């Protein structure tokens, strides 16, 4: 290291180490803003809450709300669809987790846990309601409603099929479609977020 063959470190050794250390730390610190600028900014991150009036959604009808740039399907399912979903054994499911932001992370994917009934109030009346982020968990396409082999949703991009509770049953998607945080503020109003 030293240009002189002495045991004592000299001034050049000190400058070499000090310059290298300060330069390396400075370079790493300078890189971070260049990476972090790509992350979502505060305006994007601001947790949006939306209120959706569902009084006009009759049994067998759906509406799509936009939340955080993503579609949220709100569907009042028919009694037949609920029965079909309830009849499925958990063991048949590709993803046995409810994926419901209102429940514990490991809640099982029963039909009740997927539906609005799991959110708490008036369980029996709300099991018909399904509120979920309408984004296929494979690669983010929006599935088509009331189609596919399970009569639920079918993703046209890569062929994932979901059942009437939005659970993945067939195709490349790994998870059930996500349930966002939401609650019924009145009988006809849903607050998402």
């Amino acid at each position, binding site marked *: 290291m030293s240009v002189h063959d002495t045991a004592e470190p000299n001034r050049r050794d000190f400058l070499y180490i000090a310059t290298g250390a300060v330069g390396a730390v400075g370079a790493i610190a300078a890189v971070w803003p260049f990476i972090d600028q790509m992350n979502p900014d505060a305006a994007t991150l601001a947790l949006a809450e939306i209120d959706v009036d569902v009084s006009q959604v009759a049994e067998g009808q759906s509406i799509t709300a936009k939340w955080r740039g993503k579609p949220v399907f709100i569907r009042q399912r028919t009694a037949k669809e609920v029965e079909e979903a309830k009849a499925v054994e958990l063991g048949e499911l590709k993803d046995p987790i409810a994926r419901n932001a209102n429940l514990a992370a490991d809640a099982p994917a029963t039909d009740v846990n997927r539906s609005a009934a799991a959110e708490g109030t008036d369980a029996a009346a709300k099991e018909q309601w399904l509120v979920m982020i309408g984004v296929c968990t494979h690669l983010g396409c929006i599935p088509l409603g009331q189609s596919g082999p399970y009569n639920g949703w079918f993703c046209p991009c890569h062929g994932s099929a979901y059942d009437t509770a939005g659970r993945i049953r067939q195709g490349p998607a*790994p998870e059930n479609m996500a349930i966002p945080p939401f609650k019924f503020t009145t009988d006809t109003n849903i607050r998402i977020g």
Partner: protein
Amino acid sequence: MSGHSSYVPSKGVMQWLDARLPLPRLFYDSFVAYPVPRNLNYAYTFGGILALFLGVQILTGIVLAMHYAANSAIAFDSVEKIMRDVNWGWLLRYMHANGASFFFIAVYVHIFRGLYYGSYKAPREVLWILGVIIFLLMMATAFMGYVLPWGQMSFWGATVITNFFTAFPLIGDPIHQLLLGGFAVDNATLNRFFSLHYLLPFMIAGVVILHVWALHVTGQTNPTGVEVKSSKDTVPFTPHATIKDGFAMVVFLALFAYMVFYLPNYLGHPDNYVEANPLKTPSHIVPEWYFLPFYAMLRAITFNIGPIDSKLGGVLVMFGSILVLFFLPWLDTSRIRSTAFRPMYKIFFWILVADCVFLGWLGSKPPEGVYPALALAGTIYYFGHFLIVLPVLGLVETPKRLPGSITEAVLARNGGGGTPAGAAAAPDTKG
């Protein structure tokens, strides 16, 4: 580039410059006096065609950027303005869009030529790896360019491709948000894609310089696969390769002009003339034709493999299909370069070509019925070719007798009367 230079600068300015910055000398040694094998066929002209098309894309791209607006509110309209209002805008945009397709046609011919003549084998491993890097950069550039018109295919293509990254556990979602700048593809995504789409072609140009440098260190392969042994085996780059490359370029450009003027939207999708709608996925989304084989492999994995779920599996298989090319120089155990002297490999080579075309066709089909199963079969064969056929075949195959030299092969073919110039012009038809 290596070896001594035969450049003699003319008196005056050229001598003055040669003593200060010998750029003309570099150019002369690389593209005039540079010795090329005398038996190169037309498959070897696609390197020059690729350089030409990189130039076409950069030139048309720079002028399109003068009129395009990278803002999700007006991007779609600005492209329509280019098509309708900007002087010659329709021509420039059709050249750019079809230019991307022709760039990929040329690169696929170039890659398969490399596979056929063993261009990846020692001592050209680095040359080959640089080529695979260029291919990856091309794919990234083409993908981001396709997002810019902000049509339905742009938007949903961007959504699907960026979602690849969510397949990775833990780091997937943060990386996904970092790429998008939000929770879904939106204005922030469009802006950064435009910035990177403008940057990447210049990075490609940089790697191309390294690619050509590596080529000029080892020298080109040739259809016999026998290395150059004496100066009799070569002809100077100019006029032989210049004329041959130039002729191929003009023919290729004529085909390009035909597409631009008569079938400008043949390779595109009508859905991309519908403005992006974040709440509606088109009923059948497909990427541009040049990504179809990879798209088929992505969709082929519909089942979990142990701890790897189907989504991550598909993404790994798709990236793996290109990653495997990096290891090609070491997967092929045969010491014979040219397929012309490998009778068994020749069959497998054409099966691989057919498999890639088959996968491309499957990629354009909806993911229903028998198609995913066929795609799985095609995918397994693709990997089988590189991971099983190539290593085993090199050990069991009996190659044909190699000619003693390039000159010997050329003279045998031409009945002993071939002049160097005539030999260089005679395409060595193979396969």
